[in-house]
């Protein structure tokens, strides 16, 4: 299924900037960056659970936030892209 992950990390402090990098890195391991701080991850239930757990361990719940949108398996009809920088879909034929 496709999960959209978005995050907001408070970067006023050094620790905040570190958290931001960590969150971005973790998201990158699971999915594709579609915009700054927006990731599309094609994962199964276990992987989704892991991702949620790992991310919530990184952030500081007082100042940062995470949002997960589950778009299911038939997500292709639900996503539309307008404008520059189209991204790869990891389930379409991948020919580079």
């Amino acid at each position, binding site marked *: 299924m496709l999960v959209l992950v978005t995050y907001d990390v408070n970067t006023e402090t050094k620790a905040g900037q570190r958290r931001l990098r960590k969150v971005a890195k973790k998201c*990158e391991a699971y999915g594709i960056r579609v915009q700054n701080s927006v990731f599309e991850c094609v994962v199964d239930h276990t992987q989704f659970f892991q991702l949620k757990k790992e991310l919530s361990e990184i952030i500081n719940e007082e100042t940062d936030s995470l949002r997960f949108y589950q778009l299911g398996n038939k997500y292709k009809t639900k996503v539309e892209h307008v404008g520059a920088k189209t991204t790869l879909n*990891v389930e379409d*034929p991948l020919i580079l």
Partner: protein
Amino acid sequence: MRKLLNTLYVTTPDAYLSLNGENVVVSKGEEEIGRIPLHNLEGICTIGWAGASPALMYACAERNISLCFLSSSFRFQTRVIGESKGNVVLRKTQYRLSDDEKESVKIARNFIFAKVCNQKWILERATRNYPMRIDVPTFKESSKYLTEIMKRILVTEDLELLRGLEGQAANRYFQHFNELILQQKDDFYFHGRSRRPPMDNVNALLSFSYTLLANEVASALETVGLDAYVGFLHRDRPGRASLALDMMEELRSVIADRFVLNLINKKIINSKHFLKKESGAVLLTDEGRKIFLKAWQERKQEQITHPRLNEKIPFGLVPYAQALLLARFLRGDAEEYAPFLWK
């Protein structure tokens, strides 16, 4: 059944593949042209002189992702295989059976039986689908001939004889191959099988699809813990994935031949997508290659009902399903290996 994941094909010459976190990164020079999480991939296949970093090779081997390199003329070059692990007992049984000619014949027989049966099915199906465009009586006659061969295969106890029967069947089947090409007949004419190098458009397509299929079968076998290099029909030769070739026999016509015919008959590919070299060898152009791979990937996503497992699976998982069935037989959980008999 597990989920069929995607395969990444890299056709950009001089691309370099590396590992970044959990991602495979494809770059050309300084520029990054793609980045895909490893957990979405089943395999990576590079064509032309793409290189890969040792870290990526290691990550792929660890996660059971097949990483294979083909030359720009689609000759198979190398596959990266990790440390031997998995089921030792299963592999030892495989070696024992492979050394024993009598036992080998029993398995090889099933591969070849299915191969001929599937070839026959393709001919039969053509008589039903295009009765006005092909010569039905000769097709029917060949179909009967193949049935006779199938009967003889079932009682064969000798590997040499089995290879002979296989050859006869293949001969007869390929005689009709040209008639199965219904569109673009001027550009796609099948004179007979030629390989290394393929000398015409049809053979170029066939060779490419066989290479891809062989690699997919080999990684399926290794996924279930078998040794792709120790075969029953194909004898051992260093560097040859004999078992993969064995198992491919039954899948060739259903998966590869039909795919190639589809490409031609639906005009997905045309004469502009080929290059002729001075040596007479025919190659696909970069664009042709991309179209081919895209169609191949889409074909793998199509759902079929597996005739033996009675379960809906994507076409791309058929090699894996067959590898499972073979492992089941070697483990002693099944009476015999159940080949893929397409209906």
